[in-house]
């Protein structure tokens, strides 16, 4: 065993093992012949696993191992990937190849790397017997239905989207658990306010990763929603839930930019392509009755902010700011930095749907009357710039919101709204700027029948 001195010069990334005992999952990885990097995921008050769910649990745990590896793989991005307990079937390898390629696209773009052709999870070579007698032919095995309890895991992020999803499920009397991964006072406060039972899962990254970072590891954005999804799949089997309802909206599927012929989407693992891949995989490999979906998928950001504007009890608790403050103070400035794209977008998207003084009380300041924020809002509008690398709505959506404000007497004299009217609006086609089309849901979603009433409630 050797010490990895420069992670960027490693040759192999190895998936060593995944174990589970007493509520703790242990996921081990290594570069070359370096020491094992062990991540621990703690499931609080974990019940004993019913025997009939053991196979499903093992499959979910294996997927979690493979997906969570992305945090470590990206430190070195070596040319070869090895999985210690054997190669993968096509469906699994396809899922992971896609996730690592697209989920790390922004990371690659930022670091000037090209991952195409570099990521190949080991697959079964087609057996000379053509799969005869092994059940591994062209059609993958169908996982059984486990009769999972009819309740939903709803991940809470501290932002508006998951709160809209929670309230939609509550509105139809659905049984749900508010779940989050990691320590966040903000999320804990929001989860508390939902009034639902809560589940706080802890993820402890391997300390060795921190050391690699200090030794010059590649760093950047990882598809964290995929990791959380895999954690929740394990949790659903462990605690007994038949559905995992994320709050990823329509625009998450849109690419942030195209670079050297490759689509780069900051939130690829929140997009529909990943939702389909993972949802299908869970049906075939874990349990036929475990549904993975996004409750907000048919909706635009604006439709969601409109729904959120009715949820006043959360106004002084939520934050979408990506400065992820671990310690919360009582002031709006303790939750909203006011300078990042998320602050800009949520401010703009809520503005058409809230009384102006109420909105300004949430943020503690008026971002649209601050000329220093012009460049940030330009980026949202895709004016003179590309869309920022953040989980924010599409440029056309931001333009529609800004246009709506420019027609409102209480907003139109604010510095950046006035600037939009005089400088940007003349270059746009007003016919393309209506707000209303954005409030219409699209047909694309995977929401199971049991939760479709909740889906409708959001657009009401």
């Amino acid at each position, binding site marked *: 065993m050797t010490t990895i001195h420069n992670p960027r010069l490693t040759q192999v990334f190895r998936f060593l093992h995944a174990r589970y005992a007493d509520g703790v999952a242990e996921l081990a990885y290594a570069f070359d012949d370096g020491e094992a990097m062990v991540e621990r995921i703690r499931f609080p008050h974990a019940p004993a696993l019913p025997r009939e769910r053991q196979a499903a649990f093992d499959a979910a745990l294996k997927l979690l191992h493979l997906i969570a590896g992305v945090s470590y793989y990206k430190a070195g991005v070596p040319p070869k990937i090895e999985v210690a307990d054997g190669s993968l079937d096509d469906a699994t390898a396809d899922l992971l190849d896609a996730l690592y390629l697209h989920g790390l696209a922004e990371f690659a773009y930022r670091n000037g790397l090209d991952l195409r052709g570099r990521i190949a999870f080991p697959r079964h070579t087609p057996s000379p017997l053509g799969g005869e007698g092994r059940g591994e032919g062209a059609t993958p095995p169908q996982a059984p239905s486990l009769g999972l309890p009819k309740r939903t895991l709803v991940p809470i992020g501290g932002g508006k989207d998951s709160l809209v999803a929670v309230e939609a499920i509550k509105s139809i009397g659905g049984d749900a658990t508010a779940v989050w991964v990691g320590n966040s006072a903000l999320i804990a406060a929001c989860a508390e306010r939902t009034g639902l039972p809560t589940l706080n899962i802890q993820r402890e990254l391997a300390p060795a990763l921190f050391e690699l970072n200090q030794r010059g590891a590649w760093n950047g954005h990882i598809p964290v929603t995929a990791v959380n999804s895999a954690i929740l799949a394990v949790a659903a089997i462990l605690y007994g839930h038949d559905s995992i309802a994320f709050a990823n909206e329509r625009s998450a599927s849109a690419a942030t930019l195209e670079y050297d012929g490759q689509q780069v989407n900051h939130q690829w693992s929140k997009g529909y392509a990943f939702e389909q891949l993972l949802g299908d995989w869970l049906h075939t490999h874990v349990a036929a009755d475990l549904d993975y979906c996004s409750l907000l998928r048919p909706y635009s950001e604006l439709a969601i902010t409109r729904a959120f504007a009715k949820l006043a009890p959360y106004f002084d608790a939520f934050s979408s700011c990506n400065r992820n403050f*671990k*310690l919360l103070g009582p002031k709006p400035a303790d939750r909203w930095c006011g300078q990042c794209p998320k602050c800009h977008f949520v401010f703009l998207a809520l503005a058409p749907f809230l009384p*102006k003084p109420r909105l300004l009380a949430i943020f503690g300041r008026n971002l649209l009357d601050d000329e220093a924020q012009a460049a940030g809002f330009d980026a949202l509008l895709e004016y003179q710039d590309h869309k920022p690398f953040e989980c924010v709505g599409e440029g056309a959506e931001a333009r529609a919101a800004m246009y709506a404000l420019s027609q409102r*007497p209480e907003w139109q004299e604010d510095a950046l709204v006035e600037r939009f009217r005089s400088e940007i609006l003349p270059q746009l086609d007003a016919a393309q700027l209506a707000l209303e089309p954005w409030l219409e849901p699209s047909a694309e979603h995977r929401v199971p029948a049991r939760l479709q009433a909740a889906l409708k409630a959001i657009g009401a």
Partner: protein
Amino acid sequence: MNPNAPAPLPADAPWIVMKFGGTSVATLPRWQNIRELVASRRAEGARVLVVVSALTGITDALKQLCGEGDQGKRKAAAGAIAQRHYDLLAHMQLPLPATLGARLDELAALAAEGPARLGELAWSARVQAHGELMSSALGAAFLSESGLPTQWVDARDCLAAAALPNQNERTRLLSAMVEARPDPALNARLAAQGEVFITQGFIAREPTSDQGGGRTVLLGRGGSDTSASYFGALLKAARVEIWTDVAGMFTANPRQVPGARLLQKLDYEEAQEIASTGAKVLHPRCLSPLREPRVPLLVKDTNRPELEGTVIGPEVRDHAPSVKAISARKGITLVSMESVGMWQQVGFLADVFAHFKQHGLSVDLIGSAETNVTVSLDPTENLLDSDAIAALAGDLAKVCRVKVIAPCAAITLVGRGMRSMLHTLSSVLAEFDQLRVHLISQSSNNLNLTFVVDEDVVDELLPHLHELLIAAGALRTDDSVLFGPSWQALYGSGEALAQPSWWRDGERQRLLAIAAEATPRYIYHLPTVRAQARELKALAAVDRLHYAVKANTHPAILRAIAAEGFAFECVSPGELEAVSAAVPANAPLLFTPNFASREDFVRGLASRATITLDALHPIEHWGELFRGREIVLRVDLGRGLGHHEKVRTGGSGSKFGLPLEQLDAFLRHADAHGVTVRGLHAHLGSGVLDARHWGEVFNQLASLAERIGSIAFLNIGGGLGVPSHPGEAKLDIAALDKVLREVKAAYPHYQLWMEPGRYLVADAGVLLARVTQTKGKGSWRYLGVDTGMNSLIRPALYDAWHEIANLTRLDEPATGLFQVVGPICESGDVLGSDRRLPEPQEGDVILIAQAGAYGKVMSSPYNLRGETEEVVIDV
């Protein structure tokens, strides 16, 4: 008769009205306290009327009962409320008095009956009135039983609500008003009945009319205080005493300004203005009934009856004009209306204001120009949660350009004769020059001056302004008749006692001897440097302390601090050289220049110092210089933490730090040149006395560091404040320790670095000068000394306040008021204004304190008055 009882009172004995709130009547010990207080007033020879609120929590419980539709639940609620009173009776070991029994029966009957017969509002008023009816009945029994015969008075027999225009059933029943004038008949009727009385706050009776009337009504918010005032007016009492949980009104909200002073004397108008602009201790409504009969009102602390409290009475003219209080109201929305159409147009404003009325918005402040009118709106539910502001803006936009500005805060200075004090406010007003001031308003009654600014600056601004008001002599805390102790001294961790200063107590003779050799001279006291260094070393969460040497680069001081194990922070190659020459070669160095040249970095890189960059240019254009190095990046955390200091170093208006929007670009350049960003640094300003500040900086830096990966330490800068005014609280090191431990626990993987400068050396140095002459000019007296801004420029540059003492005559009474000036040919050459000092003689030694930091290092040869020598003394 009790042999110790005072002699019976004459019929015309004066009245004292005493009001006690809910927490004061909720427990037996509190009632024993009330008994003592009432007995002492009776012993003064006064008849006493006690006005009480309901037991804590009972009014809320009654309101809840009123909202309950189910009869069974209402009965259960009434039962629970009765039980609270039975429990207290049991504690008092009293049987159920008949008056209380009757009230409990009535409440039970009302709960069972529900609102149908009386009507919702009348029934609700009647139910809610029971809180006070029951507490007063209980109190009468307790006081009488404990040897103080007390008559129970039904307030509804004394207070009749006024019939007012525009009243509806709700306001008539639930927020009634009483026109209370002295009523000799009532006075005589009660005087005939006894000497001590107890009655209810919050309730009155409806005026009788043709339709009947006589129902129970409530007085609305602040009702019990207002009841006490009504009774004070009816009985033309000697005074009304409001007993509460603080000693009175303060010069600012103590939660925002711990150094706020107790206001011992106010007139009615000032007190009402302070109550209306933020103080919660009194409801503004409760003062007006007392004004005409000139009944004084006294606010007292139930737990600390020995404290003076606040006396509010008729205007008195024998005090110097002074600002009395500063307050801030948040959540203000401004509507700015711009149009040439309003210029000399009859009725324009009338039309505009009609829209505000139509949308249910109440206007508070108004500022106007020929073509602009700006008004402020208070934060009501209607404003925040309805479309009122959008609808209003829509209507207004038809006649003018309208802009809605929010969230704002109104900062108000209150004091009688505000306009005559404007000249004293210049340094206070200068503070507003860095802020967006949206509106300034000053009323014709000359009681206030209000500034409307952005809301996010207020929390930091208010304590600072309070301090400036005192420093400017606008808030005359030196007048001990008007101003009492600070809130911190009364309720906080206590006021820091005047720090025992080394120059006053231990080393005075030595200093006089040094001055006898030559002046002007700087003297540095090394034991004080060490003591300060050791105090900071006690901060367990801090991994590395640097001395920011720009404050004082004297080699003896550098050595003393090195011996305490400090690292050193330098801002120029010259400082690096001076430090390297003085301290051991293993003391870590940090090089943190600003707008340094390429050559400066070359020299810095040649030393052993860790380099801090604070701009894009060096890494973008000279990146190769840094190849393979580990560096620190100084960022500008921008607004949100700045604004509060003249010497602020954060925000776009400051030249320090990399703006956050350039962070990604910086990291790309660093990566391209193989440069590792190992530390993040921010420093937002100087003279900060609030420990939470550094926690916020760490928290903000850590949230950035998590996105960078290579970061190992966070340097949260210095700026630890050193108070200069007597009585000003010093930085609470224990609180700082606690804050830093908390943030460190949240982000344990980052080392915490600090770089204090002034904190280590300011108090250790003094400047000694000699009196050359005095001069009188009108009422002004100048005291001239043999050095000035050439030696110490801080007073001229920053308006810094340094204590000044006549070391030769330290024990003589300070009788004269002097402007202490130097010999430099600049009118700004003033070391201290309006200083109270003993009568000086030529040759006296004058000491200017806290000159150890930014003294000698900022001195200049201006006027060619020669170098000021430095002398180091040790134990």
